[in-house]
């Protein structure tokens, strides 16, 4: 057991636990906090996968921006916590959950075929996942999608401003 494996296992357990808590909690704020924990665990997983830059971006973008926005909206609106945990009755919930388990089982069966020689991680150099290497790829091979992503963010920004804007008198 290397340090990496210990770290990855711990992060995996944390990720699964926090994900479960996200959907178990009735209070949206607590859910959001567990989601942050989940995102942090995933960032650690990225680190163990050699994604140093990715982990940093995960923290900055997901935890630092997206989830803050979630929390900001939740606290801004401050809706009363809902009484029911789930939307459907217990039978429906149970069935849906069973469906999920079936899905995981099916996926696992498929994933297991990767085990053995097919699932070996490639050995990578020092530069793997660094800001420089990612940046080089982004600005060369993926320049076009990168620019499109910029446009997407721009559109989203305008859309968000328009949607969330309170309609003042005189407008219809």
């Amino acid at each position: 057991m290397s340090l990496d494996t210990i770290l990855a296992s711990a992060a995996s357990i944390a990720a699964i636990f926090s994900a479960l808590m996200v959907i178990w909690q009735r209070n949206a704020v607590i859910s959001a906090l567990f989601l942050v924990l989940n995102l942090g665990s995933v960032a650690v997983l990225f680190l163990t996968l050699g994604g140093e830059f990715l982990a940093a971006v995960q923290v900055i973008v997901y935890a630092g921006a997206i989830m803050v926005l979630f929390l900001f909206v939740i606290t801004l609106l401050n809706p009363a916590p809902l009484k029911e945990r789930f939307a459907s009755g217990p039978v429906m919930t149970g069935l849906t959950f069973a469906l999920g388990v079936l899905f995981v089982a099916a996926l696992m069966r498929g994933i297991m075929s990767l085990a053995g020689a097919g699932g070996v991680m490639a050995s990578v150099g020092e530069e793997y996942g660094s800001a420089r290497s990612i940046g080089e790829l982004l600005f060369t091979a993926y320049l076009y999608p990168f620019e499109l992503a910029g446009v997407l963010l721009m559109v989203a920004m305008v859309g968000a401003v328009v949607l969330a804007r309170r309609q003042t008198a005189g407008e219809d």
Partner: protein
Amino acid sequence: MSFLHLIWLIPLLPLAGFVINGLLGKRMPRPVVSGIACLAVLASLVLAVGAIRDLHDQQGLADMLNNGSALSAIGARPGADGFGAVLAPTDPDHGLVLDPSIPRARQIQWTWLSVGNLSVKWGYSLDPLSAIMLLVVLGVGFLIHVYSIGYMAHDEGFARFFAYLNLFMAMMLVLILADSFLVMFVGWEGVGLCSYLLIGFNYRDMFNSARDQSCADAGRKAFIVNRIGDFGFMLGMLLILVTFGSLDFGQVFRGVHVLAQVPGSQGLLTAMALLLFVGATGKSAQIPLFVWLPDAMAGPTPVSALIHAATMVTAGVYMVCRCAALFTAAPLALTVVAVVGGLTALLAAAIACTQTDIKKVLAYSTVSQLGYMFLAAGVGAFSFAIFHVMTHAFFKALLFLGAGSVIHALSGEQDIRRMGRLTRVLPWTFGTFAVAAVAIAGIPPFAGFFSKDSILAAVFYEQPILWVAGAFTAGLTAFYIWRLVFLTFLGSDRVEKERRGHLHESPWSMVAPLVMLAFLATVGGFLGVPAFLAESVPGLHAAAEWLPGYLEPVFREAHVVGAGMGALGFHDPAHGAQVAAGSAAGHGGVTAAGEWGLMALSVLLALAGIAWAWLLHGRAGELAARLAAALGGGYRLARDRFRIDELYDRILLKPFYFMCRAADAFDRFVIDLLVNLVAIATEITGHVLKLFQTGSVRAYALSVFIGVVALVTFLVMS
């Protein structure tokens, strides 16, 4: 840089005038509007004259060809200005291509269409044939533009009128300069559109209240009848495209020469020629599609003069002449052309004798004269056809403009029964009108005499029967035109009282073009003095058959491989040397005496017609009425235009309406029923399906998820 490089500008300038006047005309003062319109045409005229001069500058052409590489280095960037000029040896596909032997200058500007193997280039070509048409159209067009300044002075749609007129000029120039069938078709349709717009110019006014027709209806009629012809043109084009794989004139005609050698190809060639001729009958108002032209008189008179007398209606003749190679390769088609032309000439002249509307008379006269042109083309005398196009443009435009001047003076009166004794009031108009009348009647030495006589002489040797019709028509022509003169200007004063107060001679802008045209109608004929005449009259040597000689290279090219030429003595290859020398056209060994005899006969016929007109209408008396009564049914038939409109109504429109109603019923009760059944089924299905539309996004997501699970499970298990 010679004027030949600027050919592209010739149609573009009037188009620019159209754009400017069309967009901004309403906001500009009238002098500016008319100034732009006239200057655009004038500038085109200057460019055209310059280009034609350069075309015949042998030295210049040689220099340009020799310096081809140097020049092409200057103008060789086809993309740079879009019209880069390149000379032949270096790059034949772009810019200027010179052929000094014709002489011909082609300017191919860009590839317009490129579909599969078909590649149509937008190109112009200038050769003697298009040069003559160019000068006629631009010259007469410019005069009529000037005339319109005065004629339309009081009209609300001043700017609109000049915009349309300029657009027409642009389209006509495209038609003339076209280097391929498709480009010609653009101009062809463009002038048709302008014709429609201008006929219906006063679209609110009634044109024929008896038949409840507005001017817009007249325009529509012209357009629809033309569409029938255009359809023929289009089919002909497609047939040519399928056969030769190209629409470029040069390639097609080379293909024709090759095809003509193939035994059994006559049917195909005849079909092509006849289909194109259908287009020509539409545009040039020949039997059976001539019915639109008289109604086209609903347009303002300058329009009638420009479009429906001098230029557009001759497009059909021009097209047939342009396709001379094709028509000569299909003798049967050529015969059809001649027969149709002759019959139209006769029929229209007969109708013209009975009409009482001044413009209607002139309209039928136009149809009749166009018939002459086709008659000439039909016997292979293409250069005489073009000669007549030219002289006709001069005197018929003059007649129309004179008629316009009369109408203008009489505040819109068009019925010659309510005119008379106008010589004093309209001296200039009368003078010039009389010149035109003499010219059309065929009295030497006016323009009409030479062209008509040349045609009749050519016809006499090719189709003697048609010559009879032609000669008789000549007499009729002299009769009806002088009937018009006598009724309008001479005789008793029958002008209505309320119109008398406004009587006045037209302003200078109208009179000046009249004088100019009168001059042309007087001397225009000397461009084509028959050879025997020129030889016998001192000082005319230089003028001997100048125009046919000038045009000859174009038509000689059409006869390079004279398939089926044996029947045509006029352009028999046996006389090729003679023809090329530009001297006597040969006429298949006709003697000078025979020529003299024919000429004398036609002059006699013309004089007889004039005398007859004077007898009937020039002096007081009941002779005309008594004659009309004596002729009875025949007269009424001619007066009612042989009831051809009604005939079309009966045999074409009625069955067509019936078919339409049947189709309508079928559509309503069969197709709609099916469609409605489908719609009802869809609606019912929708009503059932909407039950699943709970509005709960979670439910939708769940169904998606079930599908995903099923799919993944299936994939993993298999």
